[in-house]
């Protein structure tokens, strides 16, 4: 479980170690915790600012990108109930830590406001290449 390295990681940052030792440990942890990054494809760096501003954006971004890219979220458009189902699915089946009510509401508020069902499928999954709209 990554929850364990992540907690250790926090402790490392909080611990009164020398800066050099901290960096050494962080480097070792990165090497141990992220085998996917040590190969010939490195996911593009995403940051919350790449996505529409709104209350809860940063919390939503970091909650989702703990495992997967935010592009997976941003390409979808769901109702609040749909997003709630997605979060439940992630918690139940994909190791997402359970959210308390306040965090859950904050994430859902952002997702509902920013990625509602209108796009992309309201356009029939097909976009007119000549449309100016």
């Amino acid at each position, binding site marked *: *479980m*990554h*929850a364990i*390295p*992540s907690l250790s*990681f*926090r402790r490392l940052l909080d611990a009164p170690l020398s800066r050099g030792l901290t960096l050494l440990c*962080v480097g070792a942890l*990165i090497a141990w*915790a*992220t*085998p*996917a*990054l*040590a*190969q*010939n*494809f*490195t*996911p*593009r*760096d995403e*940051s919350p*600012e*790449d996505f529409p*501003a709104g209350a809860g954006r*940063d*919390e939503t971004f*970091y*909650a989702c*990108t703990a*495992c*997967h*890219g935010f*592009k*997976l979220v941003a*390409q*979808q*458009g769901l*109702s609040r*109930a*749909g997003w709630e*189902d*997605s979060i439940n*699915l992630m918690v139940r089946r*994909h*190791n997402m*830590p359970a*959210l308390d009510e306040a*965090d859950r509401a904050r994430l859902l508020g952002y997702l509902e406001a920013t990625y509602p*069902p209108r796009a*992309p*499928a*309201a356009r*029939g*999954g*097909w976009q*007119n*290449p*000549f449309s100016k709209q």
Partner: protein
Amino acid sequence: MAQETGRQGADLSRDGATQTVASVDRGRRGFLGGSGLAAIGAVIGSGMPFSDTLVPAASAQGTAPAKGPQHLKYPGKNEGLVVLGERPLVAETPESLLDDDTTPTEKFYIRNNGQIPEPAKDPEAWKIVIDGEVNNRLELSLGELKSKYRIATRRMVLECGGNGRSAFSPPARGNQWTNGGAGCAEWTGIALADVLKAAGLKSSAKYTAHYAADLHLSGDASKPSLSRGVRIEKAMDPYTMIVWGMNGEPLPNIHGGPVRLVVPGWPGSASQKWLTRINIRDKEHDGAGMTEFSYRVAIKPMVPGEKGDPKNFRILESMPVRSLITNPANGAKFSAGTKELKLRGAAWAGDLTVKAVDVSTDFGATWHKAGLSKPKNKYDWQRWTATVKLPSDGYFEIWTRATDSKGVMQPHQAGFWNPQGYGGNAMHRIAVLVG
């Protein structure tokens, strides 16, 4: 650089490269200024597996483009592929890049569920295990697979179960594939059936369960990123293969090499990449991707957008019929006075064959039959060609629809909505501008 009248010679724009294609703006993200990062700590504190520091520290490569599709940058892959997501890495092939009779490996779509494993250092030593409801547990290296069984090469379609998902309304959960989660390559390997016969299936053998070497995105080694299976009848289909070759080359790591399954006609997720084990079960598999709404469709049709009841769902097996226009490309422009367009495309139908492809230039008011080739072998796609006349200059859409060997045709819209968007096979359409 408008395309000229008639476009005689099929090689003129074999890959669509000579056409002018209007850019399609898929982007809808506003790049507004960021608010403070003050609240992040609260979320990390609630136990998020990665902190914000870990991933960017090791992966800084610039930021996402503001507009338009994001094109793939991956060694050995065509930059025309469109990235749906990078973690996991998922990229689809625009229809106009599926214009080759055999899809070159560089143009073949990419679908991952978990992390991409390191390439195997010694591919010949790669081992797969066959166990469960068999008389003899087998452990076979790739070298043994190559030497002990009859080798075959077959051209077969591999298609993501979610192909066409973006046509659902309201949107369904998951990667928003257009039609590009499919390709047709030459696969070299052996029949899974031959290995299962060698292992000796017990009479209790009902279902397969596939396991692989790719780690779950969370990094939890105990959690398969994907573990699907098929009914034993499909596993025994002589075209269901354990493969190590793709288009005459060793199967690339990104496509599941050194060893993967190809279960043709069924959702691509059954064709486990980086295969390590096939466990034979006495009942339906319940691994990652088998239950609830995963790779399942509604038995009793549901109201689009409503919450589904998992009891009303069945596993999607054969993929539905689909046809594509692979040339011209969507957004092609032709010079004024162009009266005729030559069209090319592909069609396939899961476990079935395609018996007809029709095209329309008037939104389906009238249809014209396309010339349809025979498949090279079962599960190959069928290429088609047609020539259509245009009454004037202006904006036209060209629509294509295929009909399978049981008489079932593609619908105008993705129907039979389901929460995760499987079985969407709406007719493909392109827009062209003349003059």
